[in-house]
């Protein structure tokens, strides 16, 4: 199999400049309201009538819903492109994010497309076996406006010394 996979490559095999489109998601009014009921239960975030006269001039998605959906799209993408890789070996956790901006409101019916690009491999070894993959991630709406961006450092396992495991 060729190596388009994210999950079954070692840190050393992930090149700076690699780019992926994780996919798209259309946000419904219901999921915007349900997320806000848990994480932003103010009337202007949960009630379309209330939101109409507010700063946002209508219901908008909570910023963290927009970002959490990036995570879901990434996991789904990795599952598709890493079938059979379920030992979690090279599946590191996120450590930190930088420069997260939400630029424009996301409203019911808007469709976001999420992209990922490896921009750096900081020279660090964590707990003897992990490296860091830094990616720039962006979300664009159906008008091609960028509505979100951030950088994230995610752990990736380094190839063990003397390993013949490709």
């Amino acid at each position, binding site marked *: 199999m060729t190596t388009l996979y994210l999950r079954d490559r070692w840190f050393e095999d992930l090149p700076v400049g690699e780019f992926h489109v994780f996919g798209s998601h259309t946000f419904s009014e219901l999921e915007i309201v349900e*997320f806000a009921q*848990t*994480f*932003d*239960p*103010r*009337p*202007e975030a949960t009630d379309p009538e*209330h*939101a109409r*006269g*507010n*700063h*946002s001039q209508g219901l908008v998605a*909570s*910023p*963290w*819903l927009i*970002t*959490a*959906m990036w*995570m*879901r799209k990434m*996991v789904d993408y990795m599952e598709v492109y890493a079938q059979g890789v379920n030992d*979690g070996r090279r*599946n*590191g*956790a*996120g*450590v*930190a*994010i*930088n*420069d*997260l*901006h*939400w*630029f424009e409101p996301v409203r019911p019916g808007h469709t976001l497309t999420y992209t990922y690009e490896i921009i750096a491999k900081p020279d660090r070894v964590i707990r003897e076996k992990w490296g860091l993959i830094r990616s720039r991630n962006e979300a664009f709406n159906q008008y091609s406006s960028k509505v979100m961006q*951030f950088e994230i450092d995610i*752990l990736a396992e380094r190839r063990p010394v003397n390993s013949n495991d490709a």
Partner: protein
Amino acid sequence: MATPPLPNSTLCSDTIALDKNAIVAFAARFDPQPYHLDADAAAQSIFGGLCASGWHIAALATRLVSETLLGSGMPFVQMTSVSHLKWLQPTFVNEQVSVRIALGAMEEESRIAGTHGQAIEVDVCNEDGAVVAKMTATVAIARDPKRAVAS
């Protein structure tokens, strides 16, 4: 409504308990990886136990920031940017989460009409006082408190 706090004040939130159902429900929707869904798989993972998605912690912390600022006379509208967020340790089932907010500079500019920007430094803490995450962010605060209250 309370008198708004002075610049450079530190505010503390109430506490929210993160139970297993909440952790798994969030993960099933947004971060369906074994260490957030299944206790046995999590025990074998880098985290060593079932723990909340980092995005769950970020969203929960932002709810606590909103409620704390609103309760302190600052009409919170929305978080608009996060310059840094670092997850320092996992948050396991039934941990109690709260935030400590240090108010920074007030900015005239904000991308949301009728608001100004407020810089904040947020420590997300568990019941032992350990900082599980740190966040440097800007939130939009309504210039006209009545408008925010009326909504």
